[in-house]
């Protein structure tokens, strides 16, 4: 032990101790020992069993991006079909499956998981911690996500993919009108995916309240953390609603129950309530963390702190609070009482207040700063513009009468893509440009980067702006073709061309990733000269993140000398060492005072196996293999028991005096 200044230790050292404070420069004994305890085994076993949040975060990002590409290819097929009137490339049924899978893939398998990837990778680094609160749960959540994604695609090659649209309304998706396995795959897949999202959200919530570095009081956490926290709380509250809806639908379809069965007193509108109670907060869950990415990264390129930190944090939560109450706005056209419609319509408009606060904060940050026009900045600035356009068309549809006119037209398709691509895809790609050096230790190419931005930005607007027009001309969504007498030929052609331009932009980005991985310039710890904690450690960060747990003194730990806010300075040199096995510090929820030394779990493949067994259980349900289902349930229970078994190494068991070799 290098910490020689530790004098005496009480005997019950393993249940309480005074944590060592010291320095651990690279190459010192402590640092070497930390690396040894935290690094995963090389080879496939280490790969399967790692619980390192950085590995898991990157897996999330890569997997979700692959789903984005799959969903994108589906969209391109759709756009080829719609480029000209009366085309026959796709049959109506194929078209239904394609737009359904496109929506499902984008909304469920790309949009949230990619943000979970960012947050998983970044949270512990942003918060100055060694890992998430539940590293094994984190691995588990990734595996279930991967398996659920594969599950939802199993019937695709058979030509029996989900075909009822991503919100899957009954009675069309009920047993009478949709007899194949299409909807069952979707229903069970969604329940499975719900498990992943729920445990992931629980992990974020607990991590925020327990795992921050000493001194990182609640008013110093980065906005990305607020965004993901808000999304996670919402997920915990609303995921059960959609999981239940899909499970009841599966019961209706396979077990003969009557929840949505009109002939026997069931109510299709029940589906819509359960779905949108979930669906609307979900829409915010897939944008708030992305807004957080911008709020944290944009200031780096404006060379000044974000304007209105507190307002932004509050706006983030306000958006979600209101978001809970507006699910009805997806049901304006269902014949609900007018009073209800008016209230919900008004609430929907109120959302524009916190959203505008956010927009003004970003604009003010750019305005008052000295912008540096690097690629990430372009993506973030582009995002602000698209946010405004998407927001405007959103306010328009919050007006009930206008919604009646525009509902189910391409105006909605335009709105939803401005919101989703604008507020999710642009920040995500910008975020990858921004954190790529942290992920890999290398910079991405600027020339290709700027090119990819302009191609994506122009392609996107050429592709999606005319859709508003198509909607106003009355073109309904979800039609597999149209007659040229409708006068929609021109807009559709332009839209299709724009889509391909956009796709080329994404391709340039991917080429950039591949090239930069090999040949990018080496990045130091802090290539952008940014302010937050993740840039205080090397790129890529070591397995233990921080050899010495930082002690934080302000919201901008790396800009303190420059901003000179007069408070103390954050301390990266000397602090908690926590090197007796895998350890982390737990601090108090508000003012981040050290509370306990946490024993963190070692690498283990139990999460993988538990995830596998649960996924196989769903396969059993799908195929009605009841014995197989039972067997996987038992196997899963055993895996869970192994997981939960109290361990001495984690100080979970009573230990007689003197026996502390765990």
């Amino acid at each position: 032990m290098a910490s020689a200044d530790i004098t005496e230790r009480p005997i019950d050292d393993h249940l309480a101790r005074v944590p060592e404070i010291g320095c651990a420069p690279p190459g010192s004994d402590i640092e070497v020992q930390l690396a040894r305890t935290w690094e995963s085994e090389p080879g496939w076993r280490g790969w399967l069993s790692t619980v390192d949040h950085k590995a898991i975060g990157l897996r999330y990002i890569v997997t979700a991006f692959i789903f984005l590409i799959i969903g994108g290819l589906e969209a391109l097929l759709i756009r080829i079909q719609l480029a000209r009137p009366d085309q026959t490339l796709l049959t109506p049924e194929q078209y239904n499956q394609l737009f359904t899978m496109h929506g499902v893939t984008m909304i469920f398998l790309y949009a949230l998981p990619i943000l979970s990837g960012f947050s998983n990778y970044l949270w512990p680094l942003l918060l100055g911690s060694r890992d998430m609160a539940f590293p094994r749960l984190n691995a588990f959540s990734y595996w279930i996500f991967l398996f659920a994604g594969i599950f939802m695609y199993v019937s695709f090659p058979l030509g029996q993919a989900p075909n009822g649209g991503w919100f899957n309304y009954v009675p069309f998706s009920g047993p009478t009108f949709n007899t194949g396995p299409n909807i069952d795959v979707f229903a069970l897949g969604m329940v499975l995916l719900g498990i992943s999202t729920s445990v992931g959200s629980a992990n974020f919530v607990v991590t925020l309240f327990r795992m921050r570095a000493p001194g990182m009081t609640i008013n110093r956490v980065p906005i990305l953390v607020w965004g993901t926290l808000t999304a996670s709380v919402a997920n915990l509250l609303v995921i059960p609603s959609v999981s239940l809806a899909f499970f009841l639908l599966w019961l209706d379809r396979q077990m003969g129950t009557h929840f949505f069965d009109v002939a026997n007193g069931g109510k299709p509108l029940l589906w819509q309530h359960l779905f949108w109670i979930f669906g609307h907060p979900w829409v915010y869950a897939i944008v708030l963390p992305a807004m957080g990415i911008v709020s944290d990264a944009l200031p780096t390129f404006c060379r000044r702190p974000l304007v209105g930190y507190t307002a932004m944090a509050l706006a983030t939560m306000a958006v979600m609070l209101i978001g809970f109450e507006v699910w009805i706005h997806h049901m304006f056209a269902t014949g609900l009482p007018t009073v209800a419609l008016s209230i919900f319509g008004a609430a929907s408009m109120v959302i524009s207040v916190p959203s505008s606060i956010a927009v003004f904060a970003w604009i003010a940050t750019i305005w008052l700063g000295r912008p540096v026009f690097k690629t990430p900045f372009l993506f973030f600035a582009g995002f602000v513009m698209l946010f405004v356009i998407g927001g405007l068309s959103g306010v328009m549809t919050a007006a009930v009468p206008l919604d009646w006119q525009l509902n189910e037209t391409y105006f909605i398709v335009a709105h939803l893509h401005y919101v989703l691509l604008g507020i999710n895809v642009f920040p995500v790609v910008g975020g990858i440009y921004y954190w790529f050096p942290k992920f890999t230790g290398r910079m991405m190419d600027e020339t290709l980067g700027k090119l990819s931005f302009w191609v994506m930005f122009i392609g996107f607007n050429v592709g999606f702006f005319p859709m508003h027009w198509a909607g106003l001309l009355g073109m309904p969504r979800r039609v597999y073709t149209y007659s040229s007498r409708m006068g929609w030929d021109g807009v559709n052609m332009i839209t299709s061309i724009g889509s391909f331009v956009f796709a080329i932009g994404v391709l340039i980005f991917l080429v950039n990733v591949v090239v930069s991985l090999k040949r990018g310039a080496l990045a130091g710890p802090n290539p952008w000269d940014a302010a937050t904690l993740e840039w205080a450690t090397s790129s890529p960060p070591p397995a233990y993140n921080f050899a010495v747990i930082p002690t934080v003194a302000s919201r901008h730990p790396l800009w303190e000398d420059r901003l000179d806010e007069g408070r103390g300075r954050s301390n990266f040199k000397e602090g908690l060492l926590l090197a007796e096995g895998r350890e982390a510090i737990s601090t108090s929820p508000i003012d981040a005072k050290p509370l306990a030394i946490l024993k963190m779990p070692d690498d283990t493949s139990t999460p993988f196996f538990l995830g596998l067994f649960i996924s196989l259980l769903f396969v059993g349900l799908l195929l009605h293999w009841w014995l197989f289902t039972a067997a996987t349930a038992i196997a899963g229970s055993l895996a869970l028991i192994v997981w939960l078994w109290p361990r001495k190494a984690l100080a979970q068991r009573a230990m007689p005096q003197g026996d502390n070799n765990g």
Partner: protein
Amino acid sequence: MVEPVQLQSERLPVGSAGKLSGGWWGVQTLIVTEACLFGYLLFCYFYLAAQTEQTWPPDGLPSLLVPGANTLILLASSACVWAGERGVHQSRTGRGIAGLTAAIVLGTAFVAIQLMEWRNKPYGMTTDLYGSLYFTITGFHMAHVIIGLAVLLLLLVWAMLGYFDSRRYVAMTIGGAYWHFVDVVWLFVFSTLYLFPYL
């Protein structure tokens, strides 16, 4: 130059120390999300019951005697878990074991009686809308009781292996919290399915 802040080091608990442990926070998030799940289930019940054109419940008012007694059995099991946890806290592992054993017996009795209830219903899950609701809601709860029983059984094994003492027993607290949750949920399920039709 402003000096870097220095952390003062104090003596801190190590590892899974009671309510400072990760598991305790984890089970709370589990309880929140599961409570929502049951909330939505009961929402379905009220939403459909409010709009039905059938008599509700179709087979007349449910008898309260057996389910009422069963409710008391479940509540008693919660009390046993609570007593067991206190026992462990006071270093009386024997009491802990006794409390858990009693809770498991009572919980199993609840399951058996509930299965009998199911058998005695003249309708099934597919007979009508009410049957679907009744069996799905009680089925969800039953699944939770069975998982809860498995948890209690594990706790019992761990207690007998001597894993708990007065300073390290957070598994008891966590498992206990889950069991209490399952019991409280039953009060809502019971009120909805058995008491509400009398209003």
